[in-house]
């Protein structure tokens, strides 16, 4: 009884997951649809947010803090990524004077 009552106090895991999913999807949509390199990176950060939400949500479900610990790692990686990626963006921008992702198509066969 006690456990059941306790569980009533928790925010819905389904809702947490849905929030994560929606954010992630919006991030993907933005990443794919926007052509500005910086906004694309912003969108990846948005996807990080989605992942963070999901991790925290599950961590709370199990009352396991490794979820939150990993959020810290994600933060680290995000920071590192932001540093490097933005350096690269600056670099690319210097070469072409544009932030348009489509101006870089050297990956084509």
């Amino acid at each position, binding site marked *: 009884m*006690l456990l059941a009552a*306790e569980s009533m106090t928790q925010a819905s895991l*389904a809702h947490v997951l849905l929030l994560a999913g929606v954010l992630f999807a919006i991030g993907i*949509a933005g990443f*794919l649809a926007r052509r500005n390199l910086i906004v694309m990176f912003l969108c990846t950060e*948005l996807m990080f947010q989605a992942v*963070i939400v999901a991790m925290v949500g599950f961590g709370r479900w199990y009352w396991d*803090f490794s979820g939150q610990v990993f959020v*810290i790692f994600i933060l680290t990686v995000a920071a590192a990524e932001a540093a490097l990626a933005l350096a690269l963006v600056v670099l690319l921008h210097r070469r072409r004077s544009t*932030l348009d992702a489509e101006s870089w198509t050297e990956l084509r066969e």
Partner: protein
Amino acid sequence: MDPILPYIATAGAALGLLLVLTGRTMAARSSGGVVGLASLAWLFGMAGGLPGAAGDVAEHVFFLIFALTAVASAVQMIRQKRPVYSALFFVLVIMSVCGALVMLEAFFIAFALVIVYAGAILITYMFVLMLAQQASDSAHAGETPEYDRSPREPFAAVMVAGLVMATVVSAAFTGLGDLPPAAGAETRVQADAALLRSLPAQVQREASQAGVSLETEDIAQGVRVDGDQVLIDGVTEAGDPTTVHLTRPGNTSHVGWMLVASFPASLELAGVILLMAMFGAVVLARREIDHAERALARSAGRVAEDSESGQDA
């Protein structure tokens, strides 16, 4: 509930997103927003009937409000034509997410996010944006560049996003039933007790405040749980046996302990990564400045380049 309905709601949300992204008129965009939010609301409503989908009403309502804000700002973020606005909306997303995290009792993370993301990372973005904007502004006289005004293949993008969403929806609507029940109060107390057992110094400190001195060796066995209390028996300086009610550790203690106790190597690695990222950023930026300068020099005049190459030869 027909199992197909969540997918229909997902499709509706995707449609709304598409309209928001591509709508040429205000009306189209706002109707897209309405459709999208309505679909999402329907989706969240359906999810209310799932196992573990109920909760403390106030907490839940706040969670939903934050969620709504986060989603709305995220949408705004990806549709804003000016990158600066996108970045600002992203800050709003982070704030809303932090709010949601607070509702999920992840206080440390929530504040860390605000500090690191909204504070540090986003500022870096801002700087870069300003750098880039400045360069393009010089060419295009403050006009939003074409690549910011028109999205590329929004339909495909939204479709892929919808597919991803659909997988998550599928997981949310089918997989959760198989999970073990959520951790209840008992689990939490036990977790707190376990943490306290690993932190004898803290326990000693607290016990000494209550006038009890404990041997380090006894703490591991002594800490026990009674109801939602964490207790430890001891003897006062007066020699009376007494029970000390220990303060239950908070979120930050848990996270911090887990970080250093369970993932020390990862922590070190994370530090190394950060360091390397810093080096990398510096190196990348430096080298390319040279290139850029040389390019500038080239564009300045062919004579210089020729003489340079002549010297090289």
